[in-house]
């Protein structure tokens, strides 16, 4: 748990500086309401993230909490969806009187809950949802996204592909038929048209979300022989697609790009061949090239593995980022308030424009203009190395978020259309495993 010492170092220092003045109006606890998937297919993300939240909160409280105040967590299952989710969220804010919420994983949930948070005037961190449009269509005061959105995530993957395989001529896509599958392809294909207009899209396949069988899609792709196959699928769907494609030789025939495949690598084990391009929804990787020798980072990863049986995946790091952002917002607010316990509004003021060190990757900035998080992106290629019974990432590139995120005030797709082929030449550091 060394990592939390580092992550919380600033907070601890601020608490000490605040001294006795903190005693005035200090609450007995900071209540955090978290929405996450505890049921349904997306629980592959939600359950590890919940484990991470509990682990971080426990460790945080052992060290005195935030500004000397312990945190208390309550969870709502996003799997309930629809009105049930909204009702539970309202109950959490109005009855349990949580001080801050972390909502949500699904962009659909974020679309529902962001206006509610704004109405209820409760600070909300969109801790994992990726739809860029949420913060592009309206300026919010109480809602912040503590990580990137789909635009830099997809653009990083595309630039990586164009850098390592610049001569490909044809591409096919197999995405889940729901909001993320469609939106991620819109981002990717729009950028592709701008950066490499001569590429032909030979198939756009959107099988049903949760489909147990991709045999026909695999047959069609085997017959079409595209140079590249992109998929931004996740969870069991991605596992099934990759395994069915591998069993029939498709992974060897085409270059596969797994847009958010980092979360599946451990489960896929040896079924994943070398040479697949994998994105990580941020610079998240338990062997992060700039962090892997950091004692605190290693300690967190090992503690998580000991608790859950698996190395952390990106939703775990996204959850940790939300805690880091909260810590930083309170620390800033305390400092700005002369050490006195801040009001909720003062904490919201402090969150805007803040930059926070996550301890798990590069620092993240909450952009003042639209509260969008600027988060670096890590993309790599699968490789077999001794000591692991699954593939690890090699030839990793870490992309600067300021370069690959659309500027505030311009819709993602419109910005992507303005990119020129020269954009691919941006300098990106590459790391060997």
């Amino acid at each position, binding site marked *: 748990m060394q990592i939390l010492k580092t992550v919380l170092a600033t907070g601890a220092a601020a608490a000490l500086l605040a001294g006795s003045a903190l005693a005035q109006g200090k609450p007995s606890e900071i209540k955090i309401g978290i929405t996450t998937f505890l*049921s*349904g*297919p997306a*629980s*592959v993300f*939600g*359950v590890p993230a919940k484990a991470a939240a509990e682990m971080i909160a426990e460790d945080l409280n052992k060290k005195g909490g935030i500004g000397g105040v312990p945190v208390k967590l309550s969870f709502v299952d996003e799997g309930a969806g629809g009105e049930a989710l909204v009702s539970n969220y309202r109950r959490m804010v109005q009855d349990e009187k949580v001080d801050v919420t972390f909502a949500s994983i699904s962009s659909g949930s974020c679309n529902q809950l962001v206006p509610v948070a704004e109405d209820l005037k409760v600070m909300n961190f969109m801790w994992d949802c990726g739809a860029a449009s949420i913060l592009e269509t309206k300026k919010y005061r109480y809602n912040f996204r503590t990580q990137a959105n789909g635009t830099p995530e997809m653009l990083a993957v595309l630039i990586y592909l164009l850098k390592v395989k610049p001569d490909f001529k044809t591409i096919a896509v197999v995405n889940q*038929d729901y909001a993320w599958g469609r939106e991620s392809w819109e981002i990717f294909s729009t950028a592709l048209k701008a950066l490499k207009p001569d590429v032909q899209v030979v*198939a*756009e*396949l*959107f*099988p*049903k979300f*949760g489909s*147990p*069988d991709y*045999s*026909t*899609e695999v*047959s*069609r792709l*085997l*017959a079409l022989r595209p140079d590249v196959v992109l998929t931004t699928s996740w*969870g*069991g*769907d991605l*596992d*099934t697609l990759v*395994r*069915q494609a591998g*069993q*029939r*030789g498709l992974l060897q025939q085409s270059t596969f790009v797994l847009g958010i495949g980092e979360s599946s690598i451990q*489960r896929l084990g040896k*079924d994943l061949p070398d040479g697949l391009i994998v994105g990580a929804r941020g610079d998240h990787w338990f062997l992060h090239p700039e962090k892997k020798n950091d004692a605190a980072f290693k300690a967190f990863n090992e503690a998580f593995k000991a608790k859950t049986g*698996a190395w952390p995946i990106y939703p775990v790091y996204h959850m940790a980022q939300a805690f880091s952002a909260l810590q930083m917002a309170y620390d800033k607010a305390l400092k700005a308030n002369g050490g006195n316990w801040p009001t909720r509004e003062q904490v919201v003021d402090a969150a805007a424009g803040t930059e926070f060190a996550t301890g798990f990757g590069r620092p993240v900035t909450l952009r003042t203009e639209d509260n969008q998080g600027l988060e670096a992106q890590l993309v790599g290629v699968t490789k077999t190395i001794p000591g692991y019974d699954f593939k690890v990432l090699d030839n990793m590139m870490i992309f600067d978020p300021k370069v690959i995120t659309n500027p505030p005030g311009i819709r993602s797709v419109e910005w992507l259309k303005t990119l020129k082929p020269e954009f691919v030449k941006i300098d990106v550091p590459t790391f060997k495993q």
Partner: protein
Amino acid sequence: MNSTLAILAVLDGISYAALVFLVSVGLSLIFGVLRVVNVAHGSLYAFGAYLAATLSLSVAPLSPWLTYPALLAASIIIGIVCGGLIERFLLRPLYGRDDVLQLLITFAAFMIMDNLQRIIWGVQPIFAAEPLRLLPNISVFGVNYTSYQVLLLPGVALLTLVGLRYFLRRTLAGAVILAVTEDREAATAIGIDAKRVYFVTFIIGASLAALGGALASPTTSLVPGMGADMIVLSFAVAATAGLGQIEGTALTALMIGLTRAFIIYIQPEFEVLVPYLLMVLVLLVRPFGLFGAVHVRKI
């Protein structure tokens, strides 16, 4: 679409149809005999898949070929244990009462089993492909297929269809089931134990659902919610065929499988709609399904 692609689509369609038939036929059988729309059918499918994967992963280190008996064993265990418990303790007290109660009680069973599944097997996808890996790939016009999907699954589906037909029409036990289906009161009057028939039939239907899951388990990731997806598809197939129609279920599954495969080649946007479009079209023309018959109501 050229003839090569058409042949590939037919192979894909048959493979998918085989799996759909194996799952749907149990639902149809249970409705045909017990007149119960079993919403928990999807959970039996999921439990069959999970137990098959668990047993396969356990026996594979001893001998990979043991995974095949493991698939069968999982189906039988789930059929007897889960099917037996549902029929004996949830459905039996409700026979003769409002149909809505049966629907609600099987829905409750579905919800309970869905949560049990999460408690027992967790939320991370599970994959046990050993049975599939044991069989070689075959190449058709340069496109690889796993023989598990294009030969074994259709083979088992065909065997199940023929076996069920033979059992129901050529054996004494089958005749007894058909007698109870035809007229429960008359069958009881001549000494047939209708309760026992219901019990056995439900176990057979549950075992078929579990067999569908067990045979699917080497090809797909097992995830929370997989049962819910399959129950919707099974209902569409059973309703299109006409509830209780076993041969109709086979033909409908084939029709859905082939149409879906061709649609993916021609117009993939409509893939998701295929089973339900077919269902709507069929039910508009034949409200009792393709093979269903109008029943005269007894007063």
